[in-house]
Structure formats: C-alpha cells, structure tokens
C-alpha cells in the first residue's frame, strides 16, 4: 500500500510544469513498469488519465510494453462497460491503438473488442459511436484476419449506424450526424476495401429488406458511388478474402492503402498502381470530348489547386495563428490544405463521372447554415484556427458567379500575382476576413431556414448552394466590379497592381478555398481557378526574383489558351508529383514545391507544353483561339446547371462544415483585437450557454477524433511512402546498374570482336605455319623415303654380298672336304698299295707253293698211276672177298647208322637236360643273389643295431670309467685321511712284518717286495688326483730312491712300511700276488702317466685299469671286510693269469731295466 501511496504521489507529480521533474517522473514510471508486472500501476494510470486527461499519462499508457497490455485492455474494458467513462476510454483506446503497439495482434482476442462492438451496437450517444467507429476503423487493418470472426458484428454496426445517420433516433444535433456520417463512410470504405465479397453480400441481404431500403437509397447508395468495383468481387470469394494467406503479407499500411485504392472519393482515394493514370486519362480525354474549353478549365483548376493551395494555406495559418495554436494544429492545417489538393487532383475524374459540379456550392451553404445555426464561438475557433482561410471560401464563392467569371478569368489571373507578392502582410488577411465574416453572416442568416427545416441531405445541398450563391452574388457584385476594373487596369500595366492587392488577395483566397471545398464543381470555380492558377506562379515567384516571374506570367495570361496550356502542362506535372510520390503534396514545408516549380518554369516548360498541347489537341487550341470569353461563359453556365446530380462524399461535407466553422470562428476572432486572441478563448468560453458548450465540446472532440484518425491514415501513408521511395531509389540504382552493365557489355563485345579479329589473324598465321610445317614434313618424308630406299638397296647389296660370301665359304668348305677326301684317298691308296704289295708277295709265295704242289701233284699222280697199275694186277682174285667185304661193310654201316641214331637221341636228351639245368642254375643264382642281398640287408641291419649296441657299450665303458675315477678319487681321499691317523700304531707292526719277510724272502722276494712297495705306492698315489702329476712324480721319485741303493733297503723298507699300512695286514696267502701286483701297479702307473699323453691303445689301458680295480678290491678286502665277492675274483683270474704270463716278461724286462739302472 505504501507503493500505492507512492504511485499516487507520482501521479500527482506527473503533470508537473517543471520539465526536469516531468522527465524524472516519466522515467520513474517506466522503470516501475519494467519492474512491476502487476496491473496496479497501469490501473492507476488509467484512472488518473480518465480523471485529469493528462497528456503524460496518455503518453505512458500508449507506450506500454507487452506484459502490461492485458491489464490495460482489461482496465479499458472495465471502463468501457460504464456509460460515464465510455467516451474518454474510447479516446484512450484510440490513442493507444493509433500508436500501433507491438501487441496489437492481441486486440482481436481481447474481450475489449467484444465490448467495443457491443457498445457500438447498443450505445446511443453519437459522440461515443463516432469515436468508437473511428477506433474500430483504425483497428481493422491491424487485425485483418483475426477480426474476421466479428465480421457480422462489423456489418451489423455498419447497418445500424447507417440507419442511424438517416433516422437519427437519438435526435441529436445534426452536426454530430455529419461526423457520424463521415465515420460511417470511412467504415464503409474500410469494410468494402477489406472484405468486399462478404460486405456486398451483407449489403445485399440487409438492404433487400424493405424497412432498410430507404437507408440504402439515402445513405449507402451515395457511399457506393464513391467506390469502384473491388477486384476481389470478380476474382475472390467470401472464403478467399478471409484466407489468412491473403493478409499475411500485408502490413497495416498496406491494408489501408488497399482500401484507399478502391475509393473513388478524392478525399480518400490513393493513386497507386496505375489506377490513377487510367482514370486521369479518362477524365482528360472525356473532358476534351465533351467540352473542350471547359475541360481545359477544369484541368486548370486541378493544376492550380494542386499547386497553389499548399502555399497559401500554410502561410495563412502562420499569419493568422501567431504561435498560439497548439502544435497539433499546424499539421492539421496542413492536412486540411493537402486534402483539398488531393481533391483537386481527383476532381476531374469525378466531374467526368457526373458532369455536375455545382453540388458543392450547395453543400457549402448548407454546412455553413448548420454551423451558423449555432452561434460561432471560440470553441470552433480553436480547431478552426486554420479553418479561417477555409471558411472564407464558403462566403466568397458566391461572389464569383458566372457573371464575373469572364472578366476575372483572363485579366485578373495575370494581374493578381504581383499583388499578392506585395501583399503578404498580416494586414491583408484581416481585410478579407472581415469581408468573409460579413458574407458568412449574411449567408448564414439566409440559410437558417432550410437547414433547420430538414436534415442535411446531399441532394438538398445544391439548392442551398444555389440560393446562397444568388444571395451572395448581389453582395459580391461590388467586389467583382472593382476587380474587373482593376483587371482591366492590370492588363495594361502589370506593375500596377499594388492598390488592387487588398481586393484581390482575399478574392483569390476565397476562390481557392472555395475550389478546395467545392472541387470540380461549376464554372464559377473554374474561373476562379483561372485566378488561382495565375496566383500559383506568383506564389512560386515569391521565392524567385519577382520580375522574372512577372514577365513570364503576363505572357500566359493574355491568351486564355496559354493559361490552360500552362495550367494543363503544370497540372499533370503537379499531379504527377502528387501521385508518384505524394511527397510534394504531403511535405508540410512549402519550400520544396516551389523548388520544383521553379525548375519547371526555369526549364521553359510552358512552351514545351504548349507545343504538346497543340500537337495533341489541336481542336481545343483552335476553339480556344476562336472563341474566348463568351463561349466559355456559356459552357460554364451549362455545366453549372447540369451538376446538381452529383453526390458529395460525407468527408467533403465534414470538411466543409469544418471550414465553415473555422470561418465563423475567424470572423468572431476578427472582431477581437489581434494580440488578445489567446486571451479571447477563455473569454469566449465563459459566455456561451452550457448545453451549447457541451455540444461544441463534443463537436470538438469528434473533430479531434476525426483528426486523429486522419493523422493515423497519414502515418500509414507516410510509411508506405517511405517504402515506395526506397523502391524507387532501388529501381533507379538498378537502372543505372543496368546502363553500366550495358556499357560494359558493349565494351566487352568490342573486345570480343577485337579478340575475334586477332583470333582470325592468329588462325591465318597458324594455318600458314601449318602449311609450312607440312611442306617441311613432306620434304623430310620424301628425303627419308629416299634414304630408306638407299638403305634398302645397300642392305640388298650387302645381303647379296653376304650370300656370296657364304657361297664362297661353302665352296671353301667343300674344297676342304674334297681335299680331305683326296688325302684320305691318298692314304687309302697308299694303304692299298702296301696291301697289294703284300698280297703280291704273298701271291708270289703262293705261286711258288703252287708250283711246288703241282710238282708234288704230278709226282703223286705218277705214284697213283703206279699204284693203279699194281691194283689192276691184283684185282681179279679178290672179287669174292670184296663182295663179302661189301656185305660186311654194309652191315657195319647199318649198325653204325643205328648207333648214330641212338647217339643223336641221347644228345637231344642231354641237351634238354642241360637247358633245364641251366635254367635251374640261373634260378639258383638269382636266389643266391637275393639271399646275398638279404644277407647284406640283415648285415646292415645288424650292423646298425650293433653300432647302437656298441655305442651303448662304449657309453657303459665310459660310465664305468667315470665311476672308477670317482671311486679312486674317493679312496684316495679316504686313505689320505686314515694314513695320518694310524701312522704311529703301524710302526711296530710294520717292523714285525719286515722281519717275517726277511725270513722267508729271498733276493727275488726282496726285490719283488721292494717292487711291491713301490707298486703299492704307485697304486695309492695315482688315484689321489688325476691332474696333480707333480705329486705323482714326486712320490715316484721319492719311492724310487730307496730302490736304487740296495744297502739302504731296510731303511727304505722302514720308510715304506711306515708309509704303507694295508701291506702289513696282507696275509701270506696273498703274498703270491705281490709280484704280479707290483708289476701291475707299475704298469698302471705307467699307463696313467701315458694316458694324459696319448690315448692310442685304450684297450690296454682299460684292461690294466680293470685289473687295477680288481687288485685294489682285493687289497681292500682284508682291511675293510671279508666280503669280497668271489665272482669278480674268478672273473679277474683269467685275465690276470694271461697278464701275469705277459707280466713275467715285463718283470723280467723291468728287472733288467732295474738292474741296468742299478748297474
């Protein structure tokens, strides 16, 4: 709650006059809003605003950020429900919405919208309704798609309000109805623009009912005259226009412009996207067709309005409102001034559509009558500060009737400008203001009756106007006369205008303002426009050096054609400016337009246009030249009569109302002294009755609302404008870029051509080179061919030669062969020769033998003959014998034959037998071989096994050797140790043993004994260590010494006996052994000695060793135990005996050697 109090304090300080505090407080509020998310502060602010209407609070509220919107909307909704606070709440809502907050999309969901709609449906207060409708209209483009669910509510509201406009159930002041009408009109535009299909279907259904028909006729139909057919009606459908996609890409201002495009009402319409150009063309052409002169005038009017108004009105406002007006007013004034301008731009089309301009004059009076019905007050003045200049026309147009038209149009046009230049002082406005006031007073007075008796219907307006104009004309005559006079003067002398200023300038202004309000109406206006048009160059020439413009303008003024020409020329220019960017129109600063204007003039536009005009419209030119004033007048009149049919848009009506109100206000103001104007406000405020004040306040409120709405629209336009500008800039940039690209393209094309040329050149060169190259190649080829040919020839030659060479070689070989053969033959022949010679010698010897044999043969033949002779002598007596012998021989032969047979048979048999036996033999042989092989095999096998066995056996031998070594080693050690122990005990025993031995021993025995001892020593010593040969040697030498001297035998024996212990214990039975033992010991010692040197006869060594081992065993037996096995003894006997026999010899040898040694 402390905070609550705090907030209260802050709120109270919010409207502090101190600037610093103000800023602090605002900052504090904003901080609080950021920190605090609760609804409390917002609620307080809303309360405060509703109480005090504080601008600061409004500012803060309208800039609320996201989290607070709900609270605000809730609060507004809450207040909306209460009738008392409804109006300020609505205005607050309007403010907030016009700010276009970031959360505007939430509006459609907010209950506030529902309550607003409900309020619009049910409320009966016109002011609230008007405000609400405006708020709704403002809101609609922000929530285009989400608002569709309320479409029928919107339509219902429209229906209700349109009916309201007509029926006025609340019987409120008509002035409110004008406002309401204007807002309904705006709603109509908005709904038609946004949801054409739905809206039209609504209209169709709603106004098909009989009870509504009147409303339609009176209210809706005129509205529909101000819209074109919406394209959506053709292409779209009910559902399509509610499609979110349609709205998604449109921003708020887009929607607004969309709506404006549909409008034919110059006050509402927008001329983007070629709508305008078409309509414009239409209007110009149609006008020319209809009535060329008048049309040209109309054009003039447009142009003049388009250009002149901006200058004049601001200036006026400036002059008339000396800083007192709140800032809002000045833009408003501009706004007002611009609107007429738009109107002027549009007017021709409207005219061409209806061809009945004069309605507006009618309206103006009606409005003025309305306004005049209420006494003028400062309340009106506040808003009408700028309205004053506008107000004037309401009265002034009537003076400019058709009578004056001719006079004024031509001369005054030229004359007025310089005057105005000179007369831009504050004094002048006052003059005409007074006039205006008077006029308006009069007119108001006259118009009181008609206005009171009926509601202001548009159809009535012309009549009013007519009446008004007639009434006014009388009064105006004076002025016009004076003006005409002045004009006539001026025509002669352009510089002569100074005195006329007082008259002319108000006149001009009235015309201008009138035309602004009336638009496109009757010829009076057009004449006035003639003025205004001239005035426009003048105003522009305000900034320029005077003489120049003055000189130019006169030229135009003299011929009516010129003016229209110039005007028409200008007007398109002006219009274009206006349409293309609207910049010139909308810019509040007039400086810009003058600048453009100057350019137009400086560049000699008029002649250009003139020329164009003549070319384009020769007919009109002729007409203008031929007929001047009268024709124009007639036509003007004609048109004036015609134009009572056209309907006026509610906006215009409202405008006029405002103008009139403003006029009235200025008149009131003018009654006061200038400096006390600000003070007068309060003064005025005090006097009027309260209900009037209330009405006026409401009116003011409505106006304000309207104003705010218009401002909102302007903002949207500005937004759009900026975007379009950007597009234009982009487009121009792109065009330039295009141009640059084209240039580049050209350059590159040139380059390409140059490159192509060079390419061709290069190609030609290349071809040339190629040809040369080919020529060379061909030459070279031919050369190569030739050379190859040569080479082949040479090759052939060489081959031939080679073949020849080979032939030669072959021949040589052949020859050699032949030579060899010949040689062979020679050798052969030689051999043959020797053979032949041998044979020869042989044959010779054979011949000799032959001869010898022949001789022998001869001798033998002779002998044979002799024997034959002897035989023949004997043959006769032996025939019997012979026969006997023959028979015997035959028998013998037979026997022999048999025997032969037997023999041959035997032979066969034996031969067979032999063959058999031979085969058997072979078999046997084979078997034998196999057996041999097998035997071999077996042998080898056995040998292999034997080898294994042998190696095993060898290994065994090695093992035993190793064992022996080990044992001997161990013995050696054992003996050594025991020797030392028993040394003393053995002394006596040794002596006894020595005696015994002496008794039974002989020389041999002694010798053997000595040897034995030595052998024993040898036995004992060697095993001690195999490696220590030195000790062995030592011992042997030690032992050998006693042997050599025989005398010292005893002593030596002593010593030996001392050394030897086992010998003493030896039994006598074993005594036989010593000799052999001693020998063996010797042998062993030798062998051991030798062993290290050579291992050649291992077998012997091993045998000796074996015997040694046996001996040692035997020696050991008595000393240790009598368990010496008999088997080893027996086993060892046989070798021992063998050895002993050999040993004997050795002993002998040994002894001999010993003896030799001894000897």
């Amino acid at each position, binding site marked *: 709650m402390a905070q609550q109090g705090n907030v209260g304090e802050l709120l109270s300080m919010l409207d502090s006059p101190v600037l610093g505090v103000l800023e602090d407080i605002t900052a504090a509020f904003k901080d609080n809003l950021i920190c605090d998310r609760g609804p409390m502060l917002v609620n307080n602010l809303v309360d405060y605003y509703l109480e005090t209407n504080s601008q600061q609070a409004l500012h803060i509220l309208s800039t609320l950020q996201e989290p607070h919107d709900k609270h605000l909307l809730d609060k507004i909704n809450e207040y909306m429900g209460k009738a008392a606070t409804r109006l300020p709440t609505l205005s607050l809502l309007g403010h907030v919405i016009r700010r276009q907050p970031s959360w505007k999309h939430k509006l459609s969901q907010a209950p506030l919208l529902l309550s607003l709609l409900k309020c619009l449906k049910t409320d009966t207060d016109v002011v609230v309704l008007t405000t609400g409708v405006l708020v709704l209209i403002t809101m609609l483009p922000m929530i285009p798609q989400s608002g569709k669910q309320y479409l029928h509510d919107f339509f219902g509201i429209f229906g209700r309000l349109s009916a309201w406009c007509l029926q006025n159930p609340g019987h409120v002041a008509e002035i409110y109805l004008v406002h309401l009408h204007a807002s309904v009109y705006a709603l109509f535009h908005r709904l038609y623009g946004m949801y054409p299909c739905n809206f039209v279907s609504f209209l169709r259904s709603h106004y098909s009912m009989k009870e509504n028909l009147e409303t339609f006729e009176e209210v809706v139909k005129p509205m529909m005259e101000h819209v074109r057919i919406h394209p959506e009606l053709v292409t779209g459908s009910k559902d399509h226009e509610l499609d979110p996609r349609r709205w998604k890409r449109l921003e708020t201002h887009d929607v607004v412009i969309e709506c404006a495009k549909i409008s034919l009402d110059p006050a509402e319409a927008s001329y983007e996207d070629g709508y305008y150009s078409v309509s414009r063309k239409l209007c110009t052409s149609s006008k020319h067709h209809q009535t060329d002169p008048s049309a040209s005038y109309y054009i003039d009017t447009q142009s003049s309005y388009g250009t002149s108004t901006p200058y004049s009105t601001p200036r006026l406002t400036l002059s008339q409102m000396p800083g007192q007006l709140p800032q809002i007013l000045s833009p408003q004034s501009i706004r007002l001034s611009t609107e007429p301008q738009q109107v002027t731009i549009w007017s021709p089309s409207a005219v061409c559509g209806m061809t009945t301009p004069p309605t507006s004059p009618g309206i103006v009076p009606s409005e003025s009558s309305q306004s005049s019905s209420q006494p003028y007050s400062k309340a009106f003045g506040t808003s009408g500060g700028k309205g004053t200049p506008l107000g004037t026309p309401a009265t002034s147009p009537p003076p400019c009737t058709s009578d004056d038209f001719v006079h004024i149009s031509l001369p005054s046009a030229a004359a007025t400008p310089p005057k105005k230049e000179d007369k831009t002082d504050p004094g002048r406005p006052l003059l005409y203001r007074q006039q205006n006031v008077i006029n308006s007073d009069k007119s108001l007075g006259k118009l009181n009756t008609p206005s009171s008796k009926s509601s202001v219907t548009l159809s009535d307006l012309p009549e009013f106007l007519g009446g008004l104009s007639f009434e006014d004309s009388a009064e105006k005559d004076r002025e016009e006369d004076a003006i005409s006079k002045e004009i006539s003067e001026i025509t002669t002398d352009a510089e002569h205008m100074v005195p006329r200023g007082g008259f002319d300038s108000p006149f001009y202004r009235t015309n201008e303002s009138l035309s602004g309000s009336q638009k496109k109406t009757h010829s009076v206006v057009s004449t006035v426009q003639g003025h205004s048009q001239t005035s426009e160059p003048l105003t522009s020439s305000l900034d320029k050096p005077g003489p120049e413009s003055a000189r130019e303008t006169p030229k135009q003024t003299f011929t009516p054609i010129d003016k229209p020409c110039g005007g028409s020329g200008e007007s398109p220019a002006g219009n274009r400016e206006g349409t293309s960017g609207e910049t010139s129109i909308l810019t509040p600063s007039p400086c810009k337009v003058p600048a453009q204007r100057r350019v137009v003039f400086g560049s000699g536009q008029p002649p250009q246009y003139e020329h164009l005009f003549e070319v384009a419209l020769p007919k009109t030119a002729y007409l203008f030249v031929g007929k001047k004033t009268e024709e124009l007048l007639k036509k003007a009149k004609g048109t004036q009569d015609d134009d009572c049919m056209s309907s006026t848009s509610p906006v215009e009506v409202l405008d006029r109302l405002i103008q009139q109100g403003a006029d009235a206000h200025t008149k009131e103001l003018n009654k006061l002294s200038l400096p006390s104007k600000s003070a007068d406000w309060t003064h005025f405020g005090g006097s009027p009755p309260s209900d009037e004040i209330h009405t006026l306040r409401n009116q003011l409120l409505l106006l304000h609302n309207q104003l705010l709405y218009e401002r909102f629209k302007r903002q949207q336009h500005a937004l759009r404008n900026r975007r379009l500008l950007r597009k234009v800039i982009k487009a121009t940039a792109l065009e330039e870029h295009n141009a640059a690209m084209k240039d580049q393209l050209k350059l590159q094309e040139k380059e390409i051509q140059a490159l192509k040329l060079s390419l061709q050149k290069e190609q030609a060169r290349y071809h040339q080179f190629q040809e040369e190259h080919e020529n060379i190649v061909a030459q070279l080829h031919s050369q190569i061919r030739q050379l190859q040919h040569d080479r082949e020839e040479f090759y052939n030659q060489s081959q031939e030669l080679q073949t020849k060479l080979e032939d030669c070689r072959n021949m040589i070989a052949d020859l050699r062969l032949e030579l060899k053969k010949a040689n062979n033959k020679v050798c052969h022949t030689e051999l043959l020769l020797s053979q032949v010679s041998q044979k020869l010698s042989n044959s010779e010897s054979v011949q000799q033998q032959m001869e010898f044999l022949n001789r022998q043969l001869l001798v033998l033949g002779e002998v044979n003959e002799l024997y034959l002779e002897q035989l023949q002598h004997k043959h006769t007596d032996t025939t019997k014998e012979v026969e006997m012998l023959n028979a015997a021989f035959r028998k013998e032969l037979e026997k022999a034959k048999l025997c032969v047979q037997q023999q041959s048979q035997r032979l066969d048999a034996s031969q067979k037998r032999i063959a058999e036996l031979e085969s058997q033999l072979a078999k046997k042989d084979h078997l034998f071989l196999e057996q041999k092989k097998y035997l071999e095999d077996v042998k*080898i096998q056995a040998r292999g096994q034997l080898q294994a066995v042998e190696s095993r056996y060898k290994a065994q031998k090695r093992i035993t050797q*190793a064992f022996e070594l080990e044992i001997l080693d161990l013995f050696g050690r054992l003996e050594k140790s025991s020797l030392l122990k028993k040394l003393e005990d053995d002394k006596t025993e040794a002596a006894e043993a020595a005696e015994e031995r002496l008794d039974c021993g002989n020389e041999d025995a002694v010798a053997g004994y000595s040897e034995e001892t030595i052998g024993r020593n040898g036995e004992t010593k060697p095993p001690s260590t195999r490696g220590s040969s030195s000790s062995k040697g030592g011992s042997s030498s030690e032992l050998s010494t006693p042997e050599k001297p025989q005398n010292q035998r005893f002593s030596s024996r002593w010593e030996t006996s001392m050394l030897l212990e086992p010998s003493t214990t030896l039994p006598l039975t074993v005594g036989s052994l010593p000799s052999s033992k001693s020998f063996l010991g010797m042998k062993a010692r030798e062998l051991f000695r030798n062993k290290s040197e050579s291992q050649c006869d291992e077998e012997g060594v091993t045998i000796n060793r074996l015997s040694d081992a046996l001996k040692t065993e035997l020696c050991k037996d008595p000393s240790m135990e009598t368990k010496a096995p008999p088997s080893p003894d027996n086993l060892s006997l046989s070798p021992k005996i063998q050895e002993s026999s050999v040993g004997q010899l050795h002993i002998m040898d040994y002894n001999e050697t010993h003896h030799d040694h001894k000897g």
Partner: protein
Amino acid sequence: MADDSQRNFRSVYYEKVGFRGVEEKKSLEILLKDDRLDIEKLCTFSQRFPLPSMYRILVWKVLLGIIPPHHESHALVMKYRKEQYWDIHHALHVIRFINDSTPQVDVFLRIHQLESGKLPRSLAFPLEPEDEVFLAIAKAMEEMVEDPIECYWLVSCFVNQLNSKHKDSLQQLPKILEQYLNIEDNRLLMHLKACAAMSKLPYDLWFKKCFAGCLPESSLQRVWDKVISGSCKILVFVAVEILLTFKMKIIALNTAEKITQFLENIPQDNTDAIVSKAVDLWRTHCGTPAHSV
C-alpha cells in the same frame, strides 16, 4: 625312376611356374616308404628341396645315423639309444655332475663329454671352446626338437659329424667366404678389408656353431638341412647373404669391432628371406647341390 611314375606329372610344371615344394612332401614320403632307406637319395632330396617340418627330425636322424635305414630296427635302436642316454644320465647323477635342476643343455653337454671321455674331473673346470659350440648348437636344437633324448642324439651326432666329416672343410670356409664375397660385392669386401674386419668376422658363430644363436630356429633348420645332408658350403652363402643384406649398415660402420658386434646380433626379422636367398646363391654358385660338398 620308379618314383617318378608315382609322382604327379604336373610337378615339373609346378617348379616352372614358381611353386616350390608342392610335390616334395609326397616324394619324400615315397622315399621314406622304402624299407631300407636310401640314405643317398635322402641326402640328395634334402639338398635339393627344403624338408617338410613333419619329416625333418626323422630325416635328420637317419642322415646322422642315429637310427639305421631299416624300419624294423628303428624301435630297437631307439630303445638302445634311450637306455644309453638314461644310463649316462644316471651315472652323471650318481657322480653328482648333474642334478634335477641342471639345465637340459648342460645335461647334454655332460653326457656328450662323458661319452667322448672328456668329462672334466670337476664341475668347476672352465668350458672348452668346443663345449661352447656344443652348448650353442644344443640350445638351438632344443628349440627344434621336443624329445630330450632325440635332441641329445641329434646334437651329439651333429657335432660329431661336424668334427669328423667337415673338420677340414670348415677351416677353409673363411677363405671361400672372401672369394664369393668378392664375386658378389666387391665394394663391400673392400670396405671390410679397409676396416680390417675380414679377419674378425664372427667365423666361430657362423661356421663352428653353424649360425646357432645367430638365426632364429625356423631359418636355422633350413640351413642345417643342407649341413646335415652334407654340404657345409651353405654356411658360406648364408654368411655372404647376411653381409649383403646388411650391406648398408655395415658400410655405415667403420670399425671392425662395431661390425663384428653388429653381425653377432643381426636383426631377426627377415632371416627367412636371407636363408632363401642364400640357398639360391648356393645353387647358382655350386650348380647341382647333389654333388657339392
């Protein structure tokens, strides 16, 4: 040539195409089927082809005479061999030359010493150089053969063969090495001579120990195949090939000590390739390996 009829007729082409040893196993099996093993043929086979590892030990045993050529007597002979081994083993145990903790290789050495009658009187006696050789070979063989008895016999017979059969030719090997190195790479020889490293090359390791401890067993087996089958020249070529393979490194080394050091510890990664190349080299230089010694 009765074997050839049983052999695959494609075997000729295998070798032409470059597949070696496709048919060798089969032919070896045929050889081993003979009741009386033809030792000559086995020798030739072992010289000509690498032995399949599954028959290697058998072939070695036959070639070294550990088992006779008759299959019948194999069991008996092996029994003898075994008994002999255990006898000696027992004897050594008795005379306390060995005990249970003695390494197998030392056991082999002692057994060998005892068998050859060179058993020292005491364990403390320093080892002779020939004993070192034996130990090295035994160590290598131990890796190749699982059965200790077989191993002992192989080692023992191998050493005996080296000492008896190849004793003279082993002394010639350094000279032959120089000769072949001269043929193969003169520059390397020059370098070695310049470093005076020729005399200091590890000949003992190479020729006496037959690369035992120098090459890994898998490669060593292939070298020993040839040695056991009677050619000790292969050792030279292995040595030459080692020198050639590590030529760059050897040339980089300047002193004889370093070279010797390096050669004694050559990297073991591509010894198979070395041995293969050495065998090829041996074939090219000694022609048909059957007749080379």
